[in-house]
């Protein structure tokens, strides 16, 4: 052994720190909304456009609120997991279709009348769900993204767990992986439903 081996010791300590760091998630910084009541909204439903839904309609139930859009590539990744989830678990999953037409980027919004946007959004969202399966109890349509702003959506997909009294208990940004579902969402749902 010579004194130069101390360098290896220092490096080993650094590696240990990085290895521990890998298992932590710095983005777990609690969203300011976690622990706060879910922001109110009233939006039309996809299945029955004349009916609307508000978070207070879900009072008394633990529910999941999942932000999606047909233009969102990562949503395809999590979709089969949601479909599977909806078959197995008796927790209502509500979809928030986020900027279905505006978010797509393929349309010139300044030339599109509002009713045409609406028609197109419903058409696209319905087609997507019939193609990929519909895990949602129901989906509400956030055409202009206002509700998304209230919920602090910064990347689709995002998922919120909301408890019986209407308080957001968890927020997950990005596609749900089987791991996130098993390790974080399911235990939380079990606890909240106790």
């Amino acid at each position, binding site marked *: 052994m010579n004194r130069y081996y101390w360098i290896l010791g220092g490096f080993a300590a650094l590696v240990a*720190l990085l290895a521990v760091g890998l298992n932590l998630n710095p983005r777990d*910084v609690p969203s300011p909304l976690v622990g706060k009541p879910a922001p109110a909204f009233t939006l039309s439903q996809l299945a029955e456009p004349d009916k609307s839904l508000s978070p207070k309609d879900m009072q008394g139930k633990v529910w999941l609120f999942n932000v999606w859009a047909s233009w969102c590539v990562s949503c395809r990744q999590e979709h089969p997991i949601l479909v599977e989830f909806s078959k197995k678990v008796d927790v209502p999953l509500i979809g928030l279709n986020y900027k279905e037409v505006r978010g797509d980027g393929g349309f010139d919004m300044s030339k599109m009348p509002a009713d045409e946007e609406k028609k197109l959004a419903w058409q696209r969202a319905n087609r997507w769900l019939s193609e990929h399966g519909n895990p949602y109890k129901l989906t509400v349509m956030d055409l202009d993204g206002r509700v998304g702003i209230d919920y602090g959506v910064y990347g689709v997909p995002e998922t919120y767990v909301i408890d019986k009294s209407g308080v957001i208990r968890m927020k997950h940004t990005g596609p749900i992986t089987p791991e996130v579902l098993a390790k974080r969402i399911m235990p939380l749902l079990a606890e909240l439903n106790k």
Partner: protein
Amino acid sequence: MIPELGHFALILSALVALVLGTLPLIGAHTNRLAWVALARPAATAMALLVTFSFACLTQAFVANDFSVVYVAQHSNSLLPIQYRVAGVWGGHEGSLLLWILMLTWWAFLVAMLSRQLPEAMVARVLGTLGLVGFGFLLFILFTSNPFERLLPAAAEGRDLNPLLQDPGLVIHPPLLYMGYVGFSVAFAFAIAALLSGKLDAAWARWSRPWTMAAWIFLTLGIAMGSWWAYYELGWGGWWFWDPVENASFMPWLIGTALIHSLAVTEKRGSFKNWTVLLAIAAFSLSLLGTFLVRSGVLTSVHAFATDPRRGIFILIFLVAVIGSSLALFAARAPKVGLGGRFGLVSRESLLLTNNVLLVVACATVLLGTLYPLLIDALGVGKISVGPPYFNAVFVPVMTPILFLMGIGPFARWKEASIPEIAKAVKWALVVGILVAIALPLLYGQWFAMTALGLLLAAWIVATAILNFIERVQHTRAGRGFLAAALSQPRTFVGMHLAHIGIAVFVVGVTMVGSYQDEKDIKLAPGQSVDVAGYHFTFNGVKAVEGPNYVAAQGEFDLAVDGKFVRKMNPEKRTYHSSAMPMTEAAIDAGFLRDVYVSLGEPIDRDKPEGEWAVRVYYKPFVDWIWGGCILMSLGGLIAMLDRRYRVRARAAAPVSAGTQQA
């Protein structure tokens, strides 16, 4: 079909890298000349295959092939062509491909430009690069394949992150990666020297231009990123001590130490161990930076979507590369010896001090970067370490470095005399003090820190000029001053130019830190605001349309002393693909100051014709920050092109070839 070809070429290149990383190294060890001779063709083949693969991905972007997941996630048919090309490195997978592309190009350049080097040395250098490349190619192929298909294809892509849709960001990553990855060459030279046991002046001379080239790219890459942050993010800042910025700054600090240490090793044969360790450290920090960015262990504005498998893979790679090279170093270093002796006051001792200080500076940055992780790992809480920490620890470390920078060039090798140096530099100190007293008063207010910054900057410039004149006088030998000045060695000229670049940079940082002014204000059309004597009148906002965004464009009239100067048009852009609005600041750049307007939000969302939140800045000397970086790079370039790297290297070739056969 083309993406599959690209994928296939990538697999082939991994196999070639494996061959390059094994046979030539074994051949060099066991003296099998045929295996040694494999190094150059294998490096060339690896570069060609990766370049082909990269071209395939670029083609998928240009042709809007949304059946490739990566393209669908990072491009869009409305995206202008230059951003579609830049989109290739707009995400995780593609930027790794860019990384490996750079690595294979560096290896190719070494293969081409190393005719004078002993064959065994070339084999070891290229073999080391091959091993590094192999590890990275495996990483790409197993965890981050950019050619993965999306079936059925998406009708439209998700678009490139709007923040990245900017000319500055088109060239920032390639420059930065050229720098990062360029240190792999210095690293490979160090490993080759440790393997062969031949750590001599010739080794240092071969490493120097390569190290310098990497350092130049890294300097420009960092400066470009900083400049982009300044004009694009709309906060008027130029450096945020973000973990990813730090990840690029740490190799820069160590790289700077390495350049100076290599000079000593070449000229005096000293510091050999130290130089090798710095070469290993510079590349290791580049890899660490990659880990920090890719694994998502730290939050940063640069973070990409993360995947734990990736983090584990890079960590294993990190352990393999850094661990094995440090073990090799620890095993071989005691036999290397310390080289030439030198006095307590000598150019060697001054350069050693410079090295130690730069390493300390790097350690403070590393500590500040990893500290949040450490606290999180210990379960104590979540914190972030911000500019106050870095500013507090950085100034005390940098001040002696800047001071010594003025003295170093006057000190003789081996043994220098303090009175002699003092006599040579005393006028520079006088100039420095005068500037430090006068200039802040000219700007209205005298602060001690401002005076210190200006003192050091003026000191560096004055000593550089004095040293240059002194040297020219000594080497005139009957010629005119100008003729003698023009015939100075390029390393000498380059050194002083780079040092002056540092001084210019220091002026920029000091002045903008001390005398910038900003106003955050609500303005209705017709109203105006004054900042540092600049008068801005808000004329209102109109809607404009870009290829893939709509924007609210403000119009301001800038006037000084009641005289109209120009119109300024900051924008608030909303890209079709993103909910986040982007700020495009309007900047009136000048030699001595920038003035800067950025548009916030309309006070009432439904009334864009009404009041807006507006930010106006006055930024004295801010462009000197990047000007200084350009001077540093230019100085590096001049030094790199010094004649003796070619002439002497050629003269050395037959000798080393002779020892090779013996």
